[in-house]
């Protein structure tokens, strides 16, 4: 649901959450990202880092420089809704291997969904995804657009650390991971691309609001591309949005 007016919520005295709604919805995320970019363009004093999520923008600020009331007033004056466009700024294609030897949980997830691993891979690779946000760990990229047939609750207990470049599903969403971390989601693929690299500046390729699609590859191709990614090559292909 999209609220009629955004809610301004305090996360302590130096962070303000602007909440546009309470669901995972591209229309909400568009509002979040439009406010963030309008705020960055305006650059009001005392505003620090911003964190866009599915439905809200967290704004860290220094209350000794700008009061909460002043910050809210300047946010109200930005009127970003007019500039909000759901069109992706860029479209990316990422290679992804769905072979069970690399997609560690694909059989388990497919079993829970009552389908074969091949069908799961086909459905996952056939969809277009929107990058909603980064979170959890550096470069963990949260996607919307998972086909309804692949909606699966998160695990009851987390699995062990994910492999590098894990492509995951859980809670009706998909996610591309970077570094190994325990997770309650299912590893249904792996991409050799590094979505976050300390050797790149900026360290990420893909912005919130961009679109992603997956190109299936076999395990042999994965390892060949993995070696190229390890030596610093960027594998993702970018198509400029029209």
């Amino acid at each position, binding site marked *: 649901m999209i609220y009629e007016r955004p809610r301004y919520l305090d996360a302590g*005295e130096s962070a303000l*959450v602007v909440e546009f709604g309470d669901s995972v919805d591209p229309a909400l995320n568009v509002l979040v990202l439009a406010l*963030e970019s309008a705020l960055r363009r305006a650059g009001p004093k005392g505003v620090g*880092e*911003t964190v866009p999520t599915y439905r809200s923008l967290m704004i860290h600020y220094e209350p*000794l420089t700008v009061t909460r009331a002043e910050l809210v007033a300047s946010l109200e004056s930005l009127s970003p809704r007019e500039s909000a466009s759901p069109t992706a700024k860029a479209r990316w294609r990422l290679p992804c291997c769905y072979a069970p030897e690399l997609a560690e949980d694909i059989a388990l997830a497919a079993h829970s969904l009552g389908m074969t691993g091949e069908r799961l891979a086909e459905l996952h690779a056939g969809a277009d995804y929107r990058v909603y946000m980064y979170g959890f760990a550096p470069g963990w990229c949260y996607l919307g657009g998972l086909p309804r047939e692949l909606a699966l609750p998160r695990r009851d207990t987390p699995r062990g650390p994910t492999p590098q470049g894990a492509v995951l599903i859980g809670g009706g969403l998909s996610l591309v991971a970077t570094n190994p971390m325990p997770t309650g989601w299912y590893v249904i693929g792996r991409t050799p691309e590094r979505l*976050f690299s*300390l050797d790149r500046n900026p360290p990420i390729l893909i912005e919130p609001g961009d679109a992603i699609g997956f190109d299936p590859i076999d395990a042999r191709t994965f390892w060949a591309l993995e070696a190229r990614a390890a030596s610093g090559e960027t594998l993702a292909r970018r198509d400029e949005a029209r």
Partner: protein
Amino acid sequence: MSGALRIISAGPGVTIQDAGRRGLLRFGVTPAGPMDQDAFMAAVLAAGDADGAAIEVSIGGVELIAEGLALGLAIAGGSFDIRLDGRALPPACALRLEPGERLSLRPGRAGAWCYVAPFGRFDLPLVFGSLSTHSRAGIGGLDGRMLGRDDILPVTDLRPPPDRLLAIGATWLEAARTKLRVLLGPQDDYFSHDTVETFFSSRWRVSARSDRMAYRLEGPPLRHLKGHDLVSDGLAFGAIQIPGDGTPLVLMADRQPTGGYPKIAHVIGSDLGPLAQARPGDYVAFERVSWETAVAARRRRADLIAAGPRLASEPGEISTEFLLSWNLIGGVVDAKEVD
């Protein structure tokens, strides 16, 4: 001129931290930085560099020596047992460490974190402008990890070490608190009025399962009114999340940037240091304040930090309130109210 510190031994959780990594939070990069920013600031300011870095010593303790050249070091934090070749030092001090002398920090009466800042700059690679270690992501500090035996920390751009032992007086560290102040919300409406009352009336024991990412608090489970799953939101330092099992988690320096549990309240900035200094087994409690009160406390602290620490060779030159405060920091609930 450059020198080095060698780690003789280090318990788990000893890392290098500066003020934190900024600018990449929206890409999932945790700022890290010191658990107790107040004590950290006392150490780096006493060492002569407001933008400097320090070794953050956990209750695992550390033992180190200087190699090559004598190094100046400033130490501040919880009430640790600090010894130079076995001789006890005041809990906040600046000293000259001669090559071969052993400096050891062990947990003392109270407090969970202590900072050792060099009179110089750690000659280690910056990662996105910061030396702060985020060990879960393997970023920053020394190879992105906790320090261990025989690690060498090169120190360059040396500043002259103090010629005698100096006690550090940092006025912003003086206020020990019986209750940590919080701003309610934003998801306090996920809980009944009675549950919110329970949160404020209970004493909470800091769990042994606490680390730089979060402090887990043991007490009466807090039940949600309308489920515990939230569409993920940004997470600030001091956010008090209530996950499904009803056990509060206070998000600390290494928190993940986003999370999906309701946040009943947030610890105000001025009380994050005293919270961080609570050890596993210590008790904390919370009281509700307004945004205006939180900002007034923040202003007072910022003014005191701007005035800087005092360095004195005679213990008598440091106020008794200051020395008293070392007995109180960390024993948040059990301490006497001093202000």
